[in-house]
């Protein structure tokens, strides 16, 4: 819409020629200038500029829909009103059915906690035929860190859905629906995204997984004054791809240590320190935060935090427009991830955002490391 040509908008011929003569070809060019600048450039009166801008704006604006008609559309045409069930009962209930279509879901947690396991399971679920509760479609898995294991995928499949996988050729069919891309650098990733967009439109791609986003940004991501986020274009691109094609997008993110003075506050908070309650998160031993910064945190729609406390792993719904802040204990088994408790524990306040790794090292390294 932004690149709509001025010639196609239907301005009166006289002024249309003037726009072209001054090299204002698309709506974007015209709307990036203020009315006075346009008047200077085109050498026409204010009234004419105003009416031309009004017409260009009207044509370039997106169309509206009432929310009721959006709802009806979803109910009619989409699976479960636009959700991909994860088969984790408690989580699906919290997310009103499952991972939402057209939105970005982020999985963040320390290494080895189970993010890739979750991604493997969910890619299987999307590939399953609809009679078994799947989306019956293709999955594109962008594997940046070479963590994809087909053997593990089949193992999860056989253990979770034995009745399907024992059928002749089913394993081959299901695994055949999952396409794995392995970009080695940010530029290759950018190219892969373009290819993915074409593919989504042509084939029945029902899920996009990117594992992991953080690995693409080389080196430390500075929290300092940085004008442009290195992944800014990609975030925008993936978001519009997800919405346009109404597919869920799952992305994993890493964690990094938090520097001591990095607990940011607003200016007015610093001034009234006595009135502030001690922030509980500061007391925890955890000094981990999600990588990729605050701009990224704003961009994702749903954030699932995976952490471990006292040796027990939890999956928390940290950011979601439609769920309460719940934490579910889970285990990683041969069937992938299973929840130990479907009701979840409601977490208060900003604890839901904290990423803990107490006792986690014990699981991996069999030693005590704090």
């Amino acid at each position, binding site marked *: 819409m932004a690149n709509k040509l001025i010639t196609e908008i239907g301005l009166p011929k006289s002024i249309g020629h003037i726009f072209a003569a001054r090299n204002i070809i698309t*709506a974007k060019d015209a709307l990036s200038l203020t009315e006075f600048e346009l008047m200077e450039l*085109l*050498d026409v009166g204010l009234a004419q500029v105003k009416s031309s801008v009004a017409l260009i704006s009207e044509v370039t604006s997106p169309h509206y829909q009432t*929310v009721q008609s959006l*709802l009806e559309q979803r109910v009619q045409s989409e699976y479960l009103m636009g959700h991909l069930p994860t088969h984790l009962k408690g989580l699906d209930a919290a997310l009103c059915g499952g991972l939402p279509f057209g939105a970005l879901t982020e999985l963040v947690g320390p290494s080895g906690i189970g993010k890739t396991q979750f991604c493997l399971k969910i890619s299987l679920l999307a590939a399953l035929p609809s009679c078994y509760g799947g989306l019956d479609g293709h999955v594109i898995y962008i594997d940046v860190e070479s963590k994809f294991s087909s053997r593990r995928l089949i193992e999860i499949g056989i253990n979770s859905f034995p009745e399907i996988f024992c059928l002749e050729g089913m394993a081959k069919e299901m695994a055949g629906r999952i396409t794995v891309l392995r970009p080695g650098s940010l530029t290759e990733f950018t190219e892969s995204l373009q290819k993915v967009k074409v593919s989504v439109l042509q084939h029945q791609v029902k899920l996009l997984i990117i594992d992991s986003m953080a690995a693409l940004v080389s080196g430390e991501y500075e929290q300092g004054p940085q*004008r442009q*986020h290195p992944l800014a274009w990609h975030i925008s691109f993936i978001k519009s791809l997800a919405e346009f094609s109404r597919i869920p997008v799952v992305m994993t993110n890493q964690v990094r240590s938090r520097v001591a003075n990095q607990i940011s506050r607003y200016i*007015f908070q610093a001034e009234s320190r006595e009135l502030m309650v*001690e922030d509980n998160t500061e007391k925890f031993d955890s000094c981990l935060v999600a990588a990729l910064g605050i701009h990224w945190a704003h961009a994702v729609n749903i954030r699932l935090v995976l952490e471990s406390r006292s040796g027990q792993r939890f999956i928390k719904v940290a950011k979601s*427009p439609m769920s309460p802040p719940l934490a579910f204990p889970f285990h990683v088994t041969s069937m992938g991830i299973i929840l130990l408790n479907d009701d979840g524990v409601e977490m208060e306040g900003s604890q839901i955002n904290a990423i803990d790794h107490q006792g986690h090292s014990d699981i991996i390294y069999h030693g005590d490391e704090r």
Partner: protein
Amino acid sequence: MEVLRLPLSASQKGKLISAGYTSMASLSSISPSHLALELKIPQTEALEILKSVSNGSKLESTSSSHTIVNGAQSAWEMLQEEETLVHITTSCADLDNILGGGISCKEVTEIGGVPGIGKTQLGVQLVVNVQIPYDYGGVGGKAIYIDTEGSFMVERALQIAEACSADMAEYSRLYRKGSQARESKMMHPKDFLENIFYFRVCSYTEQIALVNYLDKFITEHKDVKAVIIDSITFHFRQDFDDMALRTRVLGGMALNLMKLARKFGLAVVILNQVTTKYADGSFRLALALGDSWSHASTNRIILHWNGNQRYAYIDKSPSLRSASAPYSVTLEGIRNSASNNKRVKNT
């Protein structure tokens, strides 16, 4: 030179100056035909030029308002207007209190906060609450929701609409007896959703175009009383290499929004993201889009965490004092916080 400041095209200004007309006074007593001869332009064009001159320098008051400058209002008249100002409730009594009744119509309010604090929740609550009919103490208008980042979830809007509908039914049952109860309008969740106009904006060009187009749209749908933009920042944080252009474009958009709010008497609510700024030797949180944008809104509310409780802090307002109020996000939407030691903190 005064003539350069007139809203005329460059060639017209050039002709005026080369013919010797450099100030407004020189044009005040000339006839259109004389001007047309001097500048060698058609008479209609000369008439236009003189009209724009006279618009700029009119001193006599011909309107009914007794002011010394045409087109202005006296402070007394504005006070009369302000007394009749309506507010949109946020469904949280503490927050409504510090806001003087709720989000005021006719003004631009900016609401910012970290991800997950409840900005979108508040936005959805407002598009539902603006529809509460007069009988129930509301504004009875429709709403426009402009979504730039895809955070609007239809299921959540349905949940909030259902809760509002249930609250209205409860109110009706408790406070309205007999004939009144039968007369008052019942709103079903479906009716709420039907009155929310949803726009999805995918680039900054579309955002500018839409804000320009809103004037016409709202003229056609006169009962729109709230416009929520969620969020204003998203598209402006990534595509811009030219910061000066960004500031100009944002400035133009801010003025348009203020004009809209005043012209139609509706509430414009802008949701903003947060960024980190380096100041005084440490990193501080601040609302995005820079210092020049911070002048764009009339009121500014910052949502933040304090311990385990969410707070709304009035950062900037010409008429409300700085205060904080706790609130919570529940299944039904934004509500009062349930903690025992909730207090409205005055700073």
